[in-house]
């Protein structure tokens, strides 16, 4: 749906985004993970069409949001620490964003109230934005991002400033939005990404350092194999011979899908070995994240 190819964004001599390839599928929630200054926000801004890249392309069903107003009309963008107009009420502000997104005048207020209701900000409709708490502001801004029912939501740190109860609400909102919308959101919180995202992409120093699926059926993509009385080298050799096994080391194999487990069991048994353990390995995102992110110090300057 939304695809980025070879994106390079430079600020002066420094590359904030360097050769990023990314694809967002329909009804998918894609998490962007990465340390501070990794380039997540820059990448989101480019995906939203706010800036142009020195190289590479972005297309939303064939149109680049940076040059196509129609494409931008299909995107909802929530920046990090979203600014609001202090002198507007929440309803006025969300209505204004609806107007900018082309929502017709007759539907504008209804759409704004509906968006505020979805984000739990309906009681704030008549309040001045300048007098809202950070969490309240976040919810109003979120309502502004989805008031025009976009096909793609780009959320930069959407859970920032939310209390635990609001974070639960956010998760359920994203879960609900998934039915009609594809979502990219950046976060520092691995647990949040794990609980919400279908897939995560770890960005480090402007590059994709890791891409991993977190769907329920994807949790068995690694399996642990324990066989009695067989040397590790022999076991690895046998496992690598099984179709669908990509890597094997110390009895842990990376496989293409759950069906490969059966092929592994068959292969072990056919050799007369006694299979003691064949089980999916739970995904350890934190370890993978730390492994993927280099030890280089965070990039300086804006993302």
């Amino acid at each position: 749906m939304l695809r980025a190819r070879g994106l390079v964004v430079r600020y002066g001599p420094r590359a904030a985004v360097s050769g990023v390839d990314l694809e967002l599928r329909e009804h998918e929630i894609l998490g962007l993970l990465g340390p501070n200054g990794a380039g997540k926000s820059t990448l989101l801004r480019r995906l939203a069409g706010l800036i142009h890249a020195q190289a590479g392309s972005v297309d939303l069903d064939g149109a680049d949001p940076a040059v196509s107003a129609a494409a931008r009309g299909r995107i909802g963008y929530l920046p990090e620490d979203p600014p609001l107009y202090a002198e507007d009420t929440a309803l006025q502000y969300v209505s204004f964003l609806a107007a900018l997104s082309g929502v017709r005048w007759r539907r504008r207020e209804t759409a704004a109230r509906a968006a505020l209701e979805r984000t739990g900000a309906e009681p704030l409709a008549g309040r001045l934005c300048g007098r809202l708490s950070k969490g309240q502001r976040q919810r109003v801004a979120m309502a502004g991002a989805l008031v025009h029912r976009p096909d793609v939501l780009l959320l930069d740190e959407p859970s920032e400033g939310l209390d635990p109860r609001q974070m639960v609400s956010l998760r359920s909102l994203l879960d609900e939005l998934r039915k009609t919308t594809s979502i990219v959101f950046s976060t520092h919180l691995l647990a949040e990404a794990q609980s919400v995202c279908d897939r995560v992409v770890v960005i480090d120093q402007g590059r994709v350092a890791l891409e991993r699926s977190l769907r329920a059926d994807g949790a068995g993509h690694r399996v642990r194999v324990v066989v009695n009385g067989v040397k590790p080298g022999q076991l690895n050799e046998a496992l690598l011979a099984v179709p669908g096994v990509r890597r094997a080391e110390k009895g842990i194999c990376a496989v293409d899908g759950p069906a490969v487990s059966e092929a592994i069991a068959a292969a072990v048994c056919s050799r007369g070995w006694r299979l003691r353990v064949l089980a999916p390995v739970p995904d350890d995102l934190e370890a993978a994240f730390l492994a993927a992110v280099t030890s280089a110090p965070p990039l300086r300057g804006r993302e």
Partner: protein
Amino acid sequence: MSGALRIARRELRAYLVSPATYAVSVAFLGLTGITFFIVTDGSREASLRFWFPNLGFVLLVSVPIVTSRLIADEWRTRHLDVLLSRPISAAGLVVGKWLAAVALVLGLLAPTLVYAGFLAAWGRPDWPPTVASYVGAVLTIALFCAVGTMSSALTPTAVVAGLGSFALLVALQLVTSIDVLRPLSFQPHLDDFARGVPGLADLVYFVSGTAVALVVAGGWQRLRRRVLERGRALVAPGLALAAAVAVNLVPIPAQARWDLTAAGRFTLSEASREVLQHLGASATVTAFEPNGSPEANDAQVLLDQFTRADSRISRRIVDFSTSRGEALRLGVRDDGEVAVEVSGRREVISPLTELTLTSALQRLARGRAQQVCALAGHGERELDDTDPGGYDAARQLIEQNAISTARLDLTVADRIPPECTVLAMIDPHSPLLPREVQIIEDWMAHNGRMLVERDPNGPNLDALTTPWGLRLLPGIVFDPSRGLAGDPTSVLVNTFPTESPVAKDVSGALFVSAGGVTTAASEDTGLSVAKVAQSSESSYLHLDPSTTRYEPAKGDRGGPVVLAGAADRSMVQPGGETRVPSGGPSIARTRLLVVANAEWASNEFLGELGNRRLFANGVNWLAGEEDIVAVGGENPDLRRLTLTPSRRTLMGAVSMGGLPGVALVAGVLVWWRRRRR
């Protein structure tokens, strides 16, 4: 431009709920009110032309405050990302913000229409220039707001944006004093609108300036977002800037200018054109005015009219303080004076108006000087008398027609000096001495020219007038159907029976307590006698002052009654005048103009109807200048504002206190309503 109107609407709403807006409104209306009161109280003219140039200063201070945060704040808070992630363009954003600022400042300007209301209530404003002034103000606001929006788009810091636009606008005003860059200054263009004489160059300036500022603002935002490579992104703003500078420096034909003033104040009158046609020599006009001052600009506008009408006229505008040597050579003593040179002769005039300059050119181009000598010694009206019955206004009119004046008392003088070219006898109260009569008769017999004005009760002057076919009658003209305000002796005259040059372009005149004149046939074959002005058919010349009824039995004469007559004896003879510099027939002229009234040209009545024109025509005809002179109509600038002390107080209270007060109250109400939300 998508989204521009939506952006504008929200921005305007934000302005209207911001207390800062009302603070600016109070300051704006306070400043405009003070300048309006001072300027109008000083000029006492029913016009805003002196106030509008001051508006430029008020806008210069207030617009940067209004526009400084427009885009800079959005940039600083990164709300710009929220806006531009929507389907709107950077151009739409810039135009929307600019429209909101323009709408707000126009809203601030709207209450100043009350000023025009004062002028309409207590005077007779010239509306087309007033409307043009407001159009100029709208264009100035559009330009200033565009500059402010541009400055706000160039930096994320509102203070820097405000100071930047203020500095730029000040610079645009200061370049007025640099000749080469003067076309880039907004002040002369605003002044042209304020005068009611806007031109194509003014429109081009404001439209191109506004456009280039908005293009630069949009271009910078595109550049910032790297929508294009840096070089390509700079192309559009660079080209727009270059084009704007070029079109403003390239001279636009001055004819592309519209004089909207009722009297065509900035268009040379036919009279001046005639004078220039007969000038017969090149002329240099050097005006001394401070560099870059409004007076220098006014002088330039006026002198340009002359140089365009006659290429033999050259003009210079120099600063007295920097050209003392030049001033000394020309005999100029201060700024505001103008040296006029024709064929080696020179004259210094002040103030510079079309009238004074035309008169000077005419005076210098003449072969000989003209002088009206007003007779004295018998209670005549004096040319320097400023009382209502005096002739000071008439004297000024004569001198504006390049004819000097002098007083001549023949009871003591034994002859009429050779400088006198026209003799004026204005309302003598006692008979002339025989010796005086003899001197005048002799003088007239030798191609003299004389104006005789006498009220009905004056002495008998038949000895002087009857040889020329004219005789003053006893009695007062009553005209019940044409009496002013029901007074049958204040006669409105609309009948000028002959094609006399004296009545040229005169459609009406007012005579008060006038007598009659008969025009008698003469055997003098060279003499022609014309009825210049006469009352209506229903009028009569009444002899018995105790009644007002028409009594023919008692000698009353039925109308129409001739009120003024002109006698002209022109003969071709050696020693006369030639009309054409290269030669032509030599003509000797004797002329007499007799008016059976002296009140009509007094200070009190000269300004009524066409009296000024009729009087100027008469004097010029006597001086033999009727074919080249017609200066002497109404003063087109004169649109008085009648300010009584109570009106003055009301005007000051409303303009300096009332309007800013309303803005203050509105601001407090807005704050009060929103404080609990």
